[in-house]
């Protein structure tokens, strides 16, 4: 492994020193105790997802594999590199490489079957770290391959596949960025234990939550940052956090729902099955689907009584997740909700720094400011936002022109309507960001963030250069002028399924100001009144009350005056 033992002693840039002077007072006012110098992104990818000896044993599942890889002489080692292990794997699993190379974990590319858009990390701009494109030296840590740092990476060479990151069962396997990056980032390579590749190779097993979590828990650059419903708390969750992954209960691995064959897995947020009419399957029928309905059917509430009937009446219009995931980021790990790139680039003593002013549920401190990224806001136990969703995500890609005055740019938009049979009401996490864009062309931009050169933003803190180089490097037109634009992205919430007793009560939505009060265009009992009819109705009731009251008063008066007798009459 690459081990760089030298600490970075930054040369003092006079310009930055000037900048520093102006920003120091401001920064110091905010940084009470938790200032941390340097770029240490690994600190955010905590080790919490790793398999460790202290883990409780699998409660239900047993490993009854017909092969013990520890006994294969091919895996005896010693191995000096990852690709060497891969060759050993593929010697026996001689179709695995071809299979794997068809999939998105390898290609980072997805051609949307409905919109025709070319998506995937290889192309997209998001509103977290913005673009993996051109920054593979860092970002491709989460590419299941060895050594993708630039265009020279060979996608046709099977040896480049990293089998171990998904199949390691020891918890000792780790990856580092594929290129060194700026000197400021060298700390990320330090103090790493030696890898025993032979031991890892002999341990291989079907992927557990820990394996998938290595990347999927840390999307967006840190624990829980991106999705809000996926973070390291799902490594050993209790039942309250997720009924299916409950470490002392069902203990599902990811692939229990994300069924797959031939190294292709079901379930994609680019193209979701927003409403699954096929339901459960008999043996021999479809399995490759990640919907709730594929196990629970479309009448999942058991019982032959009115409540079950009424609840099952919702499943055609309301996604299971809407009621059964009352809040997300529930496991003590926070998710990012707001990100302001505009404020990135402040320095302290000429060096990038972090402020850690958010303490999350599990006690860890999270950075609220990073020189390399800007300001963040976090949230936990968040209520999702809700929308009609037909499952088709439409992206603002690097080529999409938008009107920066027309409100927040939707990184991903979707359609769906109450009268569209394929749509249901889905829960979403919304991510709000202010990020750089091309002011002349009104497009998003690729930034050159990572690199061992003078243009990389994570080192020089110069947006202008980082964008110029990022666009040029990838052959995209750039007007030369950048600005900041507000963006929003939508993340369908589908993990952290709560126990039934924690599911939403009816009145969470069936109320005047409920969770669905913003969805318009259809009648919902308890939420919607009838305007003038209600007015008329209440007036009639009040009118009737006043009438009888008036009549009663006059009758009483007449009786008091002894004109009539019936108020005191005897039977």
């Amino acid at each position, binding site marked *: 492994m690459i081990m760089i033992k030298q600490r970075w002693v930054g040369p003092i840039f006079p310009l930055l020193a000037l900048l520093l002077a102006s920003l120091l007072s401001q920064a110091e006012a905010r940084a009470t105790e938790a200032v941390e110098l340097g770029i240490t992104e690994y600190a955010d990818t905590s080790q919490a997802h790793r398999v460790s000896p202290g883990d409780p044993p699998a409660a239900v599942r047993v490993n009854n594999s017909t092969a013990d890889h520890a006994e294969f002489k091919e895996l005896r080692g010693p191995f000096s590199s990852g690709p060497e292990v891969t060759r050993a794997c593929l010697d026996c699993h001689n179709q695995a490489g071809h299979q794997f190379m068809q999939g998105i974990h390898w290609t980072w590319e997805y051609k949307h079957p409905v919109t025709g858009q070319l998506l995937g990390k290889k192309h997209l701009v998001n509103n977290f770290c913005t673009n993996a494109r051109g920054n593979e030296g860092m970002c491709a840590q989460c590419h299941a391959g060895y050594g993708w740092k630039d265009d020279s990476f060979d996608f046709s060479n099977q040896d480049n596949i990293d089998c171990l990151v998904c199949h390691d069962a020891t918890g000792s396997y780790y990856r580092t960025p594929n290129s060194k990056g700026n000197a400021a980032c060298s700390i990320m390579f330090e103090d790493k234990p030696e890898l025993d590749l032979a031991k890892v190779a002999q341990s291989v097993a079907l992927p557990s939550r820990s394996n998938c979590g290595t990347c999927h828990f840390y999307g967006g650059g840190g624990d829980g940052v991106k999705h809000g419903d996926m973070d390291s708390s799902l490594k050993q969750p209790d039942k309250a956090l997720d009924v299916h992954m409950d470490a002392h209960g069902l203990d599902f691995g990811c692939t229990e729902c994300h069924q797959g064959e031939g190294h292709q897995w079901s379930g994609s947020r680019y193209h979701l099955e927003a409403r699954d009419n096929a339901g459960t399957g008999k043996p021999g029928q479809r399995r490759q689907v990640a919907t709730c309905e594929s196990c629970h059917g479309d009448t999942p509430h058991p019982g032959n009584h*009115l*409540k079950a*009937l*009424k609840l*099952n*009446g919702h499943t*055609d*219009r309301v996604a299971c997740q809407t009621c059964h995931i009352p809040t997300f980021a529930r496991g003590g790990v926070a998710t990012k909700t707001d990100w302001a790139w505009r404020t990135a680039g402040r320095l302290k003593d000429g060096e990038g720094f972090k402020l850690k002013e958010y303490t999350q549920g599990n006690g860890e401190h999270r950075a609220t400011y990073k020189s390399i990224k800007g300001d963040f806001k976090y949230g936990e136990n968040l209520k999702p936002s809700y929308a009609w969703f037909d499952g088709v995500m439409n992206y603002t890609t690097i080529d999409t022109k938008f009107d920066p005055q027309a409100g927040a740019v939707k990184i991903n938009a979707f359609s769906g309507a*109450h*009268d569209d*049979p394929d749509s249901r009401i889905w829960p979403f996490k919304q991510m709000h960001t202010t990020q750089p864009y091309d002011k002349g062309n009104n497009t998003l931009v690729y930034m050159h963030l990572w690199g061992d050169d003078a243009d990389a933003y994570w080192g020089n803190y110069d947006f202008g250069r980082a964008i110029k180089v990022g666009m040029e490097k990838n052959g995209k037109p750039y007007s030369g002028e950048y600005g900041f634009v507000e963006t929003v992205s939508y993340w369908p919430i589908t993990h952290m399924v709560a126990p039934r007793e924690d599911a939403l*009560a*009816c*009145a969470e939505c*069936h*109320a*005047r100001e409920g969770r669905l009060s913003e969805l318009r265009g*259809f*009648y919902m*009992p*308890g*939420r919607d*009144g*009838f305007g003038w*009819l*209600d007015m*008329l*109705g*209440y007036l*009639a*009731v009040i*009118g*009737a*009350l006043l*009438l*009888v009251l008036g*009549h*009663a008063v*006059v*009758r009483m008066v*007449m009786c008091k005056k002894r*004109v*009539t*007798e*019936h*108020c005191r*009459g*005897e*039977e």
Partner: protein
Amino acid sequence: MAKREQHAVTIYTRYERFWHWSQAALIFLLAITGFGLHGTHDLLPFDKGVMLHTFAALGLILLWIFTTFWNFTTGNWRQFLPNTKGLFAVIRYYAWGILFGEDHPHKKTLRRKQNALQGLAYLTFMVLIGPALWFTGIIYLFYDLWNEIPGAADGLFWVAFLHTAAAFLMVTFVIIHIYMTTTGKTPLHYIKTMISGVERVELTEVERAYLAEEHPERLKE
């Protein structure tokens, strides 16, 4: 004209009284739960509201089926035939005469227990408001059976709209109905009558003879 005499008679049979009071209880329950579901008040959780409302509605529909059967087999339905004779006199009585101690213009008989205004009100209740409620209510309850039809969501709006409109009419009816019960000889007289079933009415000799022969227990004095 046959000779008439005042007699205390059981004019509301046991079934009639059971019908009245169980219907009253169910309508109260339906109104309270229904307007809770509508969002008028917040007194009970939505799911409990749905349960109570639905079961009370089913109970009321069952009661109405029995009662419709009962009304036709006993001939009691004739009590509800529209009759405008004396309508104006009754309206004038409630607006004016009652305040000056006049006698009620309608004399209760076995054949006509209700005055003209009352009859019209009950007829409206039985053929208009009631059916509007249960008809829209049943369609509403079984929404899941027709929700796949295109435009079903708009249909649900109109069903709920009519159901709510009828519910407002029902509440208005009930308020006035309850007030009218205080206009008897004493404020509680009519209530007591509805509980005991006994009221002083004018009987013809033939009626009296018939009751004495066939239903002596209904003749109270």
